[in-house]
C-alpha cells in the first residue's frame, strides 16, 4: 500500500477546477460521483483545443484537418482498447454512453440470435439501463427474462444464478459495479460459469472503469459497456467492447454514415467492425476528451486511486456505522467507494435537501434501481459516491450535516 500525502491530494484536487467552487457560500463537497464525475483541466482543454485547432469531420475526407482528426480519433480507439485490454481496437465501438451501448447489444444481439422460448438473465441489483433494454428484446422475440436475485448483503446470489443457467439461456447481463450499493460483482467467476455452458456475458461497466483496472480478456466477458462521463471524461461519449466474433455476426443497430458500404434502393451493405456500429458523424471532440481522461487516469495510476478510495470508503463506513439511526444498505464483500444509507424516520429527500444547503452534494432516491429498492423494501436511499479527489475532511462535513439533519427532523 502506498502512502498518500495531504499535498498530493491537494494537488490532484487542483486539477479539477469545479472543486474550488462554493454552493450557497459553502465549499462544494461533491459526493455524487456515481452520477457523473468531475473533469480535470486536461480533459476540458483537450476539447477546447480540438475545436480551436483541429476540428473536422472524420473519415473519407482527403483534406488535412479531416485526416488529422481521423488519425487522432482512431488513436483514441487504440488507447481505449489498451485501457480495457481488448484484443483489437476493432472491438471498441464508440457510443453516446453506457445506456446506448446496452441498447445496441440488446437490439443487435437480440435481432441476430434471440428466438422465442430463449431466456436472458438480468439481475435485481442492476440499473434500469441494464434491465429494460433486455426486457424489450425479450418481448420483441418472445423470449423470457429471468432474474438473478440479490442476497441480503447486496450481492448476486450465485447459487441461484447457477440454477438459472440452461441451454435456453442466451445472455447473462450484469453490472461490474452496482451504482446503488457499490457491490463489485465477481465477473471473472460468473463468466467462467457461463462459458462452461456456452452462454455469453454482457457487463454494464458504467461504474466499473473509474474505480479500478479492467481487463476484458482476463475476465473473459463478451461485452463491456461504459460511459466517459463517469470516468472523468466528457459527457456524450462512451463505448462498447465486444468480442470480434460477436460483433461480426451481429446486425448493425443505427444506420447511416460511415457504417455503410454500398447503398442502392434495393439493398444496402455495411462496413466492417467497428464502423458497422457507428452511424452518423462521430463525436470526435468528446473522444479527444475521453482520451485525455484515460491519460489522466494512467498518469495517476490505479495504485493511488484505489488506495485513496479505499481509505475514504472504510473511513466513511466506520463513521456512519457509529452514528445512531443511520443504516448502511448492503455489505458486500467486494465494494467500491459508494455508500447508500438511510436515516431512521427521516426521508432521504428531507435529508438531501438540508445537506445540499450545507454544500454537500449527495444523490437521493432509487438511483434508477427500482427493482432493487423493491427487494430491499425501501423507497430510496441517500448515496455518497466518492472519488479519489474527495477527502476525509469532506466526509466529516457530511457527518456533521447528517447530525444537523437528525436534530432538525427529530
Amino acid at each position: 500500500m502506498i502512502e498518500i500525502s495531504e499535498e498530493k491530494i491537494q494537488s490532484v484536487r487542483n486539477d479539477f477546477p469545479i472543486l474550488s467552487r462554493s454552493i450557497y457560500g459553502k465549499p462544494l463537497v461533491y459526493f455524487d460521483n456515481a452520477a457523473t464525475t468531475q473533469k480535470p483541466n486536461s480533459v476540458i482543454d483537450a476539447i477546447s483545443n480540438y475545436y480551436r485547432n483541429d476540428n473536422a469531420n472524420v473519415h473519407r475526407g482527403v483534406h488535412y484537418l479531416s485526416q488529422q482528426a481521423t488519425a487522432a480519433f482512431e488513436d483514441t480507439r487504440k488507447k481505449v482498447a489498451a485501457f480495457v485490454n481488448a484484443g483489437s481496437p476493432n472491438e471498441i465501438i464508440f457510443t453516446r454512453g453506457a445506456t446506448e451501448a446496452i441498447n445496441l447489444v440488446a437490439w443487435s444481439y437480440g435481432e441476430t440470435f434471440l428466438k422465442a422460448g430463449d431466456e436472458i438473465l438480468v439481475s435485481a441489483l442492476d440499473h434500469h439501463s441494464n434491465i429494460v433494454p433486455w426486457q424489450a428484446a425479450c418481448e420483441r422475440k418472445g423470449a423470457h427474462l429471468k432474474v438473478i436475485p440479490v442476497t441480503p448483503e447486496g450481492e448476486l446470489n450465485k447459487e441461484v444464478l447457477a440454477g438459472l443457467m440452461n441451454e435456453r439461456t442466451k445472455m447473462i447481463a450484469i453490472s461490474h459495479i452496482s451504482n446503488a450499493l457499490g457491490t463489485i460483482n465477481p465477473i471473472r467467476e460468473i463468466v467462467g460459469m457461463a462459458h462452461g455452458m456456452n452462454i455469453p456475458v454482457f457487463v454494464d461497466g458504467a461504474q466499473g472503469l473509474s474505480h479500478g483496472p479492467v481487463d476484458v480478456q482476463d475476465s473473459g466477458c463478451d461485452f463491456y459497456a461504459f460511459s466517459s462521463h463517469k470516468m472523468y471524461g466528457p459527457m456524450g461519449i462512451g463505448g462498447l467492447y465486444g468480442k470480434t466474433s460477436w460483433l461480426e455476426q451481429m446486425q448493425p443497430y443505427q444506420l447511416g454514415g460511415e457504417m455503410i458500404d454500398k447503398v442502392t434502393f434495393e439493398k444496402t451493405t455495411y462496413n466492417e467492425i467497428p464502423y458497422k456500429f457507428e452511424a452518423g458523424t462521430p463525436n470526435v471532440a468528446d473522444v479527444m476528451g475521453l482520451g485525455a481522461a484515460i491519460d489522466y487516469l494512467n498518469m495517476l495510476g490505479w495504485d493511488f486511486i484505489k488506495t485513496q478510495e479505499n481509505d475514504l470508503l472504510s473511513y466513511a463506513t466506520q463513521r456512519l456505522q457509529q452514528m445512531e439511526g443511520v443504516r448502511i444498505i448492503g455489505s458486500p464483500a467486494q465494494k467500491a467507494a459508494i455508500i447508500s444509507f438511510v436515516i431512521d424516520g427521516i426521508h432521504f429527500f428531507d435529508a438531501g435537501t438540508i445537506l445540499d444547503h450545507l454544500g454537500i452534494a449527495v444523490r437521493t432516491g432509487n438511483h434508477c434501481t427500482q427493482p432493487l429498492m423493491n427487494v430491499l423494501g425501501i423507497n430510496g436511499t441517500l448515496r455518497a459516491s466518492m472519488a479519489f479527489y474527495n477527502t476525509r475532511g469532506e466526509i466529516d462535513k457530511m457527518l456533521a450535516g447528517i447530525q444537523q439533519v437528525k436534530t432538525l427532523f427529530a
Partner: protein
Amino acid sequence: MTINETIDQIINEFSQFDDWMDKYNYLIEMGRSVPLIDETQKNDSNLIVGCQSRVWLSSEYRDGLIYFTADSDAVITKGIAFLLIRVFSGHTPTEIVEAETDFLDKIGLREHLSPTRSNGLLSMVKQIKLYAFAYQVKEKNS
C-alpha cells in the same frame, strides 16, 4: 382573503428569515399543520408521480369552492404542500385557474421550482390547476 393576499402574507412571513435554516424550520413546522388527506384517499389516483418523495393530493368541491388536502412521506414536501393549500384552498375554480404561481420563487424556495421531476412541486401546482380546471368545466356543463 384572496389568493394574492395569501401569497403576500406568505412572502411577508418568509421575509423575516435571513437564514435558510430558519426558513426550513418554519417549513417543517408548517408541514405538521397540513390538512391531512383522508387515509382512504391515499391511493394511486391521488398520488403525484415523478416526485422524489411521495405526495398525495386530494380535492373536494363544496358550494362553488375547492378544498385541498394532502400528505407526503417527506416533511419538507408536506410544508410546501401546506403553503400551496393555504394559497389555493377555499377558492373558486376560476380564481385558481387564473392565479399566478411563481410566489415560491419570491419566498426564496427557488430550488424547489426546478423544471424536473426531482421534487413534485411543479407537479403539485399543475395538479391543483388541473383539479380547478376540471371543476370549472363541470360548473359550465351543469
